[in-house]
């Protein structure tokens, strides 16, 4: 079996400053990988580089398409790349406003990707939107409301649904629970765990919160100062951290 996404020596510099050093890893179908670290550790930079949101300074990304063929993202035309990003990939921003079209209704937000892929039947688009609202636990009578009228937690769930509506194969998430109340976070995490499992999605989740990583991920990568300092199975790392920095992180949450 081929890995779904093959990250090979991806690095990013901002002028003289290093965003993240050359990093390589493979993401397997259905696998959930967490990238953990404090702010400034390079985790968001890495996420943006491997998800096509930002151009890496060096390195390559290999992707195995649905038909089994392998493509190198950097070698695709912009049209092909954008097509893949619409069909196979999703990206959940920390701030839902960055990932939603705030000027149109929730239903239109959910329908947009379907229409972008050629969906031209209003009734079917609408019922698919209703279906997804239910799956992310939003009442369907809110379908024609503007996302502005949604709470922070609802917006985040709407953003996740907007990404999942075209059944992507990988979803990238940048601090998806950041900025939400603790109780709202718990509900969202629960929902996300269910969705990822049921849909067999692969996911890369960036978080500073080890609890999020523990709940969602099977594998974990710990970053510090633009470097990966430790990588392995999530349970293993949390039980027996090897790198001094990871030990510090783990002990700090155990103290809480």
């Amino acid at each position, binding site marked *: 079996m081929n890995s779904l996404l093959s990250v090979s020596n991806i690095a990013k510099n901002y002028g003289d400053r290093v965003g993240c050093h050359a990093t390589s890893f493979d993401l397997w179908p259905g696998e959930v990988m967490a990238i953990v670290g404090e702010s400034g550790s390079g985790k968001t930079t890495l996420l943006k580089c491997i998800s096509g949101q930002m151009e890496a300074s060096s390195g390559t990304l290999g992707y195995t398409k649905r038909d089994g063929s392998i493509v190198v993202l950097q070698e695709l035309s*912009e*049209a092909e790349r*954008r097509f893949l990003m619409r069909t196979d990939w999703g990206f959940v921003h920390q701030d839902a406003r960055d990932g939603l*079209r705030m000027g*149109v*209704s929730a*239903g*239109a937000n959910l*329908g*947009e*990707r379907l*229409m*972008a*892929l050629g*969906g*031209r*039947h*209003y*009734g079917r*688009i*609408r019922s698919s939107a209703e279906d997804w609202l239910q799956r992310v636990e939003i009442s369907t009578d809110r*379908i*024609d409301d503007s996302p502005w009228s949604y709470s922070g937690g609802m917006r985040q769930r709407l953003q996740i649904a907007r990404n999942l509506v075209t059944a992507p194969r990988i979803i990238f998430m940048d601090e998806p629970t950041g900025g939400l109340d603790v109780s709202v976070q718990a509900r969202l995490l629960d929902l996300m765990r269910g969705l990822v499992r049921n849909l067999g999605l692969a996911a890369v989740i960036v978080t500073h919160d080890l609890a999020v990583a523990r709940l969602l991920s099977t594998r974990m990568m710990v970053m510090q100062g633009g470097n990966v300092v430790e990588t392995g199975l999530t349970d293993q790392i949390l039980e027996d951290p090897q790198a001094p920095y990871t030990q510090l992180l783990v002990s700090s949450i155990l103290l809480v």
Partner: protein
Amino acid sequence: MSGPVYNFAYLNEQTKRMIRRAILKAVAIPGYQVPFAAREMPMPLGWGTGGVQVTAACLTQDDILKVIDQGADDTTNAVSIRKFFVKTAGIATTDVTDDATIIQTRHRIPETPLNENQILVYQVPIPEPLRFLEPRETETRKMHALEEYGVMHVKLYEDIARFGEIATAYDYPALVNDRYVFDPSPIPKFDNPKLNNSAALQLFGAGREKRIYAIPPHTKVKSLDFEDFPFSLPKWDKPCAICGSQTSYLDEIVMDDQGGRMFVCSDTDHCRKTQALK
């Protein structure tokens, strides 16, 4: 001091050549907006200077020009543009659609079907159909290049969700030759079917926005819609009060302040012709 001496149809030959090149490119890529270095014309930008430049670049001494605004030859701006060409090109003009070789129009397509010896020139205020969804030129260009038109349907979706139907009455976007989404200028959607498979060459000039685009003869033009909410035409309860036409676009005339209304053809040439047939 004496004013400048004008060339045939006002523009100098250098400029006409530049515009003709843009037109040729536009014809080669139906629906694609070709940038051109529009000049200032002696009428205000936004008042048909794009159409005027396209017409000026197409005119020959033998052409017979018809100019309409809102379907009528006698509206002030149509009169003004027609006078301009009579003065600067000395060409013949007509009100009769069938007799014209070039028809410059604002907001309407003549009811009389056009033939392969005619050019229809549209005046276009905003050539970019995506403009009000995405104000940035750099982004809309990319969206056209990559055929990322999902957002057009988002707008139609919102219409149906809110009003139960597509609430766009004019300036109704369409897909040209299965490739480019285009803006047909603010013609009523009633006229959209006439865009499709027309025998005449259709040229669109936007002077202020510096764009030219074209629909070559017999090109497919499909108005955007949903399978379950197909494109539909507005209907009037009554025929034209003057000629009795039941197929033409009607203007509403306010007769008095008691709510008296009457409906008459917006295309004045068509109305005359239908009356004559009676």
